[in-house]
């Protein structure tokens, strides 16, 4: 497996862990246990991110996190640009769809809390989907 693919796979799974922690944070933010769980989950998020950066520097050979740091050669760069282009187009469509959803939600006379919960859930789903899409596209273009 190439170094780029190892970095991509590692980042994919750490992102999934981060999204799980974020989901937990979103869920507890609407409960009475918020002031107990929020600091714990926040610390876990920070530790996860720091551990990810440490692992990438010491075990995956990443020296700097500037630019396309996981790219080793021209083929990796081409795959990255193709994937980024597709993901950016998807993100643009998502934002357009989100505008429509917000207009619908505003007409449903939801409370502020309900509106907030719904939007948080939609944005969380979009992040998870985007992570999946990035990984899937990279694997697809790497085979091509």
């Amino acid at each position, binding site marked *: 497996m*190439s*170094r*780029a693919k190892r970095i991509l796979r590692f980042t994919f799974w750490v992102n999934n862990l981060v999204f799980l922690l974020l989901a937990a944070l979103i869920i507890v933010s609407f409960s009475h246990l918020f002031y107990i769980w929020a600091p714990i989950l926040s610390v876990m998020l920070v530790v996860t991110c720091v551990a990810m950066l440490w692992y990438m520097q010491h075990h995956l050979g990443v020296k700097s996190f500037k630019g396309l740091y996981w790219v*080793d*050669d*021209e*083929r*990796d760069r*081409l795959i990255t640009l193709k994937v980024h282009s597709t993901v950016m187009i998807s993100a643009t469509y998502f934002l357009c769809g989100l505008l429509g959803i917000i207009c619908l939600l505003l007409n449903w006379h939801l409370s502020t809390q309900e509106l907030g919960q719904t939007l948080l859930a939609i944005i969380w789903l979009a992040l998870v989907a985007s992570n999946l899409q990035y990984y899937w596209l990279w694997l697809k273009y790497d085979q091509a």
Partner: protein
Amino acid sequence: MKNTIATRRKQRKLSQAELAQLTAVTRQTINAIENNKYDPSLSLAFKLAAILETTVDALFSNGEDVK
């Protein structure tokens, strides 16, 4: 684009990993080029030709059979 990289590489008793190291690309890139799944940039094509002691014209073709 068809190429004769695999044949010439084997003639020189080079592995894909060794050729990749000489051309500063990954082994996966060399494999993709040999299997016609990736067309290299001009600079990489010239590097490959230089290491395999041939010309770019002799190394790559547009799809016609390479003799």
